[in-house]
């Protein structure tokens, strides 16, 4: 092999190694950026859910007239309205699941996971025959959600009675655009 050819081969080898290192660096950087963005997305989603937690308690569609409690009498009407204008509420709430539960007085264990719907509502033993209201749910990709919750004052206008409830929000790691 001539001396010139050796030099060319060496140069190509050096450039090749530099390119390999460069590609490894770029791929590593992008993977790191992607992971960072994913974790930022999760953080922002949690922050949005925390804001939503405070917002949902005060949401005029669900709150009592004086704003100090959540009106259980509005849950089923809200769900009906939600069905009529789903697009608008999706843009407000995004990918979340919003559930209210009665926690005190303590309900019978067998009804804790029973959804309060129209069939339960018209029964004489309402509200002791069901334990939760899912007022909103949108999770098209069946993602696994993180849950945050807060204690609320639940008001039953039918009986003029206040009970202790809990608002739970499952949020999915997709930020609302």
């Amino acid at each position: 092999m001539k001396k010139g050819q050796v030099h060319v081969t060496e140069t190509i080898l050096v450039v090749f190694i530099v390119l390999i290192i460069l590609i490894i660096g770029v791929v590593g950087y992008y993977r790191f950026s992607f992971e960072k963005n994913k974790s930022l997305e999760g953080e922002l989603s949690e922050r949005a859910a925390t804001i939503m937690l405070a917002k949902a308690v005060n949401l005029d569609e669900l709150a009592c007239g004086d704003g100090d409690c959540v009106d259980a009498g509005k849950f089923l009407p809200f769900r009906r309205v939600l069905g009529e204008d789903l697009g608008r509420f999706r843009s407000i709430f995004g990918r979340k699941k919003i559930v209210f539960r009665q926690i005190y007085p303590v309900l019978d264990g067998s009804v804790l996971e029973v959804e309060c719907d129209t069939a339960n509502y018209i029964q004489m033993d309402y509200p002791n025959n069901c334990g939760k209201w899912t007022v909103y749910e949108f999770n098209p990709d069946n993602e696994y959600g993180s849950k945050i919750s807060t204690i609320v004052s639940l008001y039953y206008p039918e009986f003029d009675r206040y009970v202790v409830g809990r608002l739970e929000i499952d949020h999915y790691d997709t930020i609302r655009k």
Partner: protein
Amino acid sequence: MFKWIFGTIAGAVLLSFFVSFSVTHLEGSKVLEGNKMVVFIDDKLDALGLGEGGNVLELEDEFLIGFECGSISAGEWEDDNYAERSTDKVIFSAGRLEGETINMWTQKWEFPYRVVTFNYLSNLKNYYVLVHDSDNSDDVLDLANNIPNNMNFQTVGSSDFNPSDFSGQAKYADKFTFVFFGSSDYTVKRIKNSFYGDVKVEIIEVNLNVNTAKIYNNYGDIEDVFYLGDEMLYGLIFSGTGYTCAKDRAMERFRTITQIYNYKVQRLMGKTNDPDCLNLLNEGRRMLNTFLSVNSKSEFYNYFEKIERQNRGLREKSCSTIY
């Protein structure tokens, strides 16, 4: 020779790669900056909207924030850092606010039940002058007293009103809104002639007796509007020509809330055994049903009073109330 050609090409490729890499990241960070700003403002409005009152939003830098109907934007449309976000909030503002601070004020709109939180936004470059006459000075001063001090409001009697008095402030203003309670002899053109520079001027003539107003835009075009309650009147003053769109969004929420109460009362009727309560609730339901479809201002006020009275009647009879 070959080495030089090879080195030059390889160097150019590497250099262009690093340059494009940096440019992409710079553009990305600009987009992120705009997006962070609109999310920040939206979150602040959410937090402030939980209660009522005034606040000042300090931005870290000078920003152009747009509050168009149903969206919040940061920057100019053609800029790299332009960002826009849709919002469900009802925002009454001058449309575009430029600067490092935004003054905010929130109030709950009740008609007769709580409907939505109104957000009023302004900055130090937007001026509002309320011009009252002897017949309505008490009402106007009451209105003005409720507004937080940082919202740039001034009041003046119609006999003392002279637009030239505001020409000094107009030099530094983006927009001047003159609100005449009663009719006015001034036109937008006449007021603009008293000012130096190209400040935007709007005139609003409010008739407090019938809850209507005329909005004259910067070019003197007229729009007739009505308002429902003082909260909406404040919205009219803050937003001027942008009022109709914000009001329509508020009315959309009003219809949603009314529908919820309508369905709620239907269910409450199924839960009561007292015939008096049943009759009162049924009457209330019919009122809510009609309230959903009314369009004229007089009908809105008429049903507002009817439903308020009906709710009071239900409370007095110890029945479940509408709201």
